[in-house]
């Protein structure tokens, strides 16, 4: 067991995947010689050579389209889109091609690719470097969508994603890249250090896709969340002292419905928390599923706390995404309902 940042854990996962399977290739803008602007692919080109880890032209469409062709050839491309905000030029290749190739060819051609993208705010990236586009992927059948919240999960989930036979969208909360999420303007957040989440198991292991993690047990209220917001939720629980159960979904699609519903049936209250904008966000899907499965167990309507329905602002980033105080307020309101 070593202590690692999420970036180091992702580097380590790449290294192990490439060592284990010589069909794994890694490419994207700046990922080769330089090792990526966030350094997630550092050292790979030196170790595995230029034909397995290389820089590409600035063409997200080209990166994903070429990866699909390589996958059809028999390789296992794991590509990087420098920021999730930049994936829109590649969206048609992801949605119409990667997601559908197995289906439309009846399994004759498949697309085992991983598309990694740093997501979310908290680093003053404004509207072009801070978006959380997960709902644009979970709505697309044929894709799997994964969001880790700890270095250990980032490693295990990335290794599972690379080994997966289907296309996986791997969204990395960049606020967690370099260490604990240790602050918010409305309350301090110290969950990372409290929970020692920087511990990462050594060697190759896969954290299975489609399995959520109960990061804190409780019976008063269920908080469904993922990515950066897992840590905000934990801070809010600490602040309120409410015995909430915090579930880190880890994989948004396929969803671990069993774990979610079991918890909500037990607690009778559900709060959905994400950083992405509220309207038609992934939280809407969670709320719909919870009310379908748990209606007679609910003591209050399902509550949602999310980013405001505005583009991601620059100077007001910390007012934009939910902090512990906002979550705490909603938790208290839910308990009184």
């Amino acid at each position, binding site marked *: 067991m070593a202590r690692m940042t999420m970036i180091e854990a992702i580097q380590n996962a790449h290294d192990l995947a490439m060592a284990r399977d010589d069909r794994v*290739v890694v490419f994207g803008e700046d990922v080769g010689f330089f090792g990526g602007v966030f350094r997630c692919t550092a050292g790979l080109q030196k170790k595995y050579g230029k*034909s*397995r880890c290389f820089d*590409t*032209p600035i*063409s997200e*469409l*080209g990166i994903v*389209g*070429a*990866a*699909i*062709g*390589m*996958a*059809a*050839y*028999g*390789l296992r491309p794991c590509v990087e889109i420098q920021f999730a905000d930049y994936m829109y*030029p590649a969206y*048609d*290749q992801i949605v*119409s*091609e990667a997601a559908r*190739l*197995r*289906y*439309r*060819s*009846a*399994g*004759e*051609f*498949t697309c085992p690719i991983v598309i990694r993208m740093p997501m979310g705010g908290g680093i003053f990236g404004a509207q072009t470097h801070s978006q959380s586009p997960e709902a644009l992927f979970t709505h697309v*059948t*044929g894709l*799997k969508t994964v969001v880790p919240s700890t270095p250990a999960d980032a490693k295990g989930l990335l290794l599972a994603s690379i080994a997966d*036979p*289907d296309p996986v969208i791997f969204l990395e909360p960049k606020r967690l890249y370099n260490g604990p999420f240790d602050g918010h303007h409305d309350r301090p957040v110290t969950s990372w250090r409290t929970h020692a989440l920087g511990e990462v198991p050594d060697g190759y292991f896969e954290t299975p896709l*489609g399995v959520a993690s109960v990061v804190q047990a409780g019976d008063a209220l269920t908080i469904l969340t993922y990515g950066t917001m897992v840590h905000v939720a934990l801070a809010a629980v600490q602040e309120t002292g409410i015995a909430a159960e915090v579930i880190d979904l880890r994989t948004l*699609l*396929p*969803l671990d*419905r069993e774990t979610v519903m079991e918890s909500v049936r037990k607690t009778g209250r559900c709060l959905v928390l994400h950083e992405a904008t509220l309207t038609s966000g992934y939280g809407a899907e969670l709320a719909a599923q919870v009310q379908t499965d748990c209606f007679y167990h609910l003591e209050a309507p399902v509550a949602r706390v999310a980013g405001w329905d505005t583009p991601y602002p620059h100077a007001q980033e910390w007012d934009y995404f939910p902090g512990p105080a906002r979550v705490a307020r909603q938790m208290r309101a839910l308990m009184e309902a």
Partner: protein
Amino acid sequence: MDDHPPLALHVPEPEWRPGDTPDFSRVEIPRAGSVRRPPVDEDPEAMRDLAFTIIRVLNRKGEAVGPWAGELSEEELLDGLRHMLLLRAYDARMLMAQRQGKTSFYMQHLGEEAISTAFRKALGPRDMNFPTYRQAGLLIASGYPLLKMMCQVYSNEEDPVRGRQLPVFYSSKEHGFFSISGNLATQYIQAVGWAMGSAIRGDTAISAAWIGDGSTAENDFHAALVFASTYKAPVVLNIVNNQWAISTFQGIARGGAGTFAARGHGFGIPALRVDGNDYLAVHAAAKWAVERARRNLGPTVVEYVTYRVGGHSTSDDPSAYRPKEESTAWPLGDPILRLKAHLIGLGAWSEERHAQAEAEATDTVRTAQREAEAIGTMQTGRRAGPRDMFEDVYAEMPPHLVRQRHEAGY
């Protein structure tokens, strides 16, 4: 105040519209045999002229002339003629089947038969095509069963893609035919990726990308050219210029560029422009480009100059936007008649044998059609069923889909 005259938008128009008399006499068509054939490893800069001419082998008398001639044996040419006849007969029957309501949609190759059938003969068995909807000749020339093709068109129970794709959107890994997408140009960059994969693995297989003149305007085309150029991918980048993108003439996508082939030059990729109605020229150019790729010399852009005689699809009526006489005025002729004349000139063929071969092609298609229709069509018989709908979305069906399948009753 600005005293310039007001600006006006330039929108290119074809030279004639319904009611006008088409006149192709201003189109420059070089004499057959007059275009040079450089060695495959010539510096791309030294062969820029080849993107602005038209490589032709068959002259008006049906003789094969010039440096691009002499690649194919008599037997291979006879094979080529049979493939084109079969494709034409298949198109005719499937077009009719669509009109009879046995399928929802069809797209024919009329006038473009030489391109896909001749190109296929230049490829090896492990190479991969990333085709569009008008390259079924790749399948026919590789011996793919007509019956399977028809089952795909009819979406019946034997449809290899289980009723999920539009008719003519075939897929065959074994026959080097990548699954067709309805979103235009997406396959172009994928072909480059496939070729890069082959190079990464130290394989010897190459790929071929296919696109129409209209779709070269899509971003994917440009991404493909930059990737192919950067990594010197072993890929042949084909552009089939059949003059029409549904109702839009090729000048709209081409813009101010001299030719589509010339697009390669901006990327340092050598480019050939070929008579797409000349089986021998198509084959010779394809072979040249395939050899370049195979020798790790990188990509080649090839523009095939041809004419889409039929409509874009069964949903299209070309008489609404172009003169009816345009296809007969097309100066490069009919690919089947040109190869037929060549073979007769060689003494390897005759009018009688041709009539017999046409009848044989029709008969082969009819037999396959009877078999396919005995299985089912869009309307009757054993069709791809709704239970198939839920398979192959993922390698393993996730719980939410299992639930939905049960809810649907399967």
